[in-house]
């Protein structure tokens, strides 16, 4: 009954009459790389039989709670930092892998960027904008072990795009932000990104050259799209709509190592990385 009424209402109140609208949850803020992935996926599925619409929740625990308990088709972008978040937030941020079906994966590299006019001068003290979902304590101590003896003071932001805005506004001196979120500001010349954990597209150097060799210098945020309560035909339709364009769309957004069609080995490796990330605080 609810489905019938909801369908009738959706005919009246949404633009897409014939597509099946499915909510896609995020375990982090939509203002970071997960938001870019979700918006790109929504765009790619816009004209397909399965249309994914973004939905922000207040915490990873709430997103996972909705995903695990919903009886209707639903999707989520689950990142490989969520086992760590289960430890830190004491909420369950881990989805039920038995019922969830992985569809696609992509990774975000992180850049160390500076406000216009700021230089990484030796023996100085600088504010460092970081995202609350990143491993903050580990990242701060890692950055503080830099070869220029610069002391960083952590400033917490909700998502990568807020870090970029803060850099543009010169609220902070330095920021750690995903390359995907920083790209447009770099191109506009509003900020400079000096080091990266995986991108050289804008002339960034490897972060290890500044902060030393460490696993965090190679840190890339893994994001996997999972769905549940969908029929085999619906999953095929979704994969089909993503096959044509997901990898190139992610590449355009500076997201790397993207793939559609996840096998067991991919999933196991992803979960293993998520387990390994627990070591970071």
């Amino acid at each position: 009954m609810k489905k019938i009424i909801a369908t009738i209402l959706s005919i009246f109140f949404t633009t897409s009459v014939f597509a099946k609208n499915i909510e896609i949850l995020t375990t982090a803020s939509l203002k970071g790389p997960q938001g870019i992935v979700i918006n790109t996926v929504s765009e790619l599925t816009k004209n397909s039989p399965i249309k994914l619409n973004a939905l922000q929740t207040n915490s990873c625990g709430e997103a996972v709670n909705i995903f695990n308990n919903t009886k209707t088709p639903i999707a989520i972008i689950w990142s490989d930092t969520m086992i760590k978040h289960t430890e830190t937030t004491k909420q369950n941020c881990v989805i039920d892998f038995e019922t969830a079906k992985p569809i696609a994966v992509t990774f975000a590299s992180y850049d160390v960027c500076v406000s216009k006019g700021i230089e990484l001068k030796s023996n100085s003290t600088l504010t460092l904008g970081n995202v609350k979902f990143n491993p903050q304590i580990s990242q701060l101590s890692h950055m503080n072990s830099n070869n220029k003896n610069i002391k960083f003071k952590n400033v917490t932001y909700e998502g990568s795009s807020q870090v970029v805005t803060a850099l543009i506004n010169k609220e902070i001196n330095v920021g750690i932000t995903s390359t995907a979120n920083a790209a447009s500001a770099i191109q506009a010349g509003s900020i400079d990104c000096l080091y990266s954990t995986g991108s050289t597209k804008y002339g960034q150097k490897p972060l290890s050259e500044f902060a030393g060799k460490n696993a965090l210098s190679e840190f890339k945020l893994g994001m996997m799209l999972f769905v549940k309560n969908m029929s085999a035909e619906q999953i095929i339709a979704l994969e089909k709509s993503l096959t044509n364009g997901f990898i190139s769309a992610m590449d355009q957004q500076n997201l790397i190592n993207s793939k559609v069609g996840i096998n067991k080995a991919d999933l196991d490796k992803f979960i293993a990385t998520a387990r390994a990330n627990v070591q970071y605080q």
Partner: protein
Amino acid sequence: MELFFTVSLGIISGVFAGLLPGIPIFLGFILFLPFVPVDPLMLLIYGIVMNIGTQFFGSMSALYFRVPGESSSYPVLMEVNNFNTPEKLHLAILLTTLGSLIATLVAALSIWLALYTGILNQLYMPILLKMFLFSLLTIFSMSANKNYIGNFFLLICCSIFVFYPEIASNSKGTLPIYYFNNMLALIIIFAMQMIWNKTDALETANTSKKSNISIRNKIPMMLKYSMIGTLFGLIPQLGATISSYAVYAWEKFRDRDSFSRITASETTNNSAIIFSWFPLLLFGVPITATEILLLQQLNTFGFSLNFINSSSTQLQLLFAMIVSGMIYYVLSVMVNHNFYNKLGKVITQRWFTLSLVLLSVGMFYFLNHYSFGFIIMHIIIFVPISWLIHRLNLSIITMVIGLLLMKDILFTALQVIQIYF
């Protein structure tokens, strides 16, 4: 089609929130919100169009029913006894509606020009100013009803709801983890306020008749106060109300007649209410309860305000503001007194209020993935809270800030501490 539907919905909501006595602006906004197409521009247009309407019809309510539709219309109420003939009443309606229309045009064009030319694009909101605005907003909301202690405790209670999952997860299993939906909580609280605040009888004014008194001489004054109103619009939450009282007092101080006083106050508050959207559109910082609600809705669906940079979007926004202003003007002037009386009687009926409450909660249920039990749980918790807010004369604006903005406020405060200390 979507634009037409959204503007129509905004007008219905604006007329409703403006005419219904004692109902704050954002209640009208939230009750019709589930019907708005999930599109950032449509959500924004709905919010602005609705806000404009409340100012037109807030004064209508005061003039016809002698009950102000919203707080910025009290100056009209103070003067209403001076409009004791049908001709005077008609002139008062013509003046306030024309003033509101001119204010709408001036404020809408100012916003559009600023966005279109990009003249202010290099400006940014320093974090200290943002913190200052948030503090002002919180202080103003807590000072509503002059119940400072009660509102402070309400703010604390809201924070407990907002942070309940974190509190429960750290309670070592003594509290169950439960995720409240803030928007559903607000829909229930606001909707119930309509029932608790119900006005049983409307005292009606004289029937209006056409007047031959010229209003042309008042137009320069309307233009002047429209521009002044834009400045008042930058005051968090209370811009429209403060502007209305300030210019009313100024006109009274200058010993101007009743018509000048209400024209000045209604023109200024309309301009202020539209221009109050400016900080949100330019810097993404909400300064009124309606804007907080809108921003929450945009965030829920992952929308940013970047869409406003497109010139076609800016034109659609301008179009919606001007067209809705004109429609409100025509509705206010052309529709006769009997219609207002009938409409007023219908929307203040208990069955109408209850139907709207059920429709809003029902829409939320059908358009979201939440279970029936989840809705019932919220009703069980938030209906008594709504009653307490009514009984203890607390400010529901404080509730909006507490539930929707508290995380942002605390996060900004944390950033200020991390940067400067």
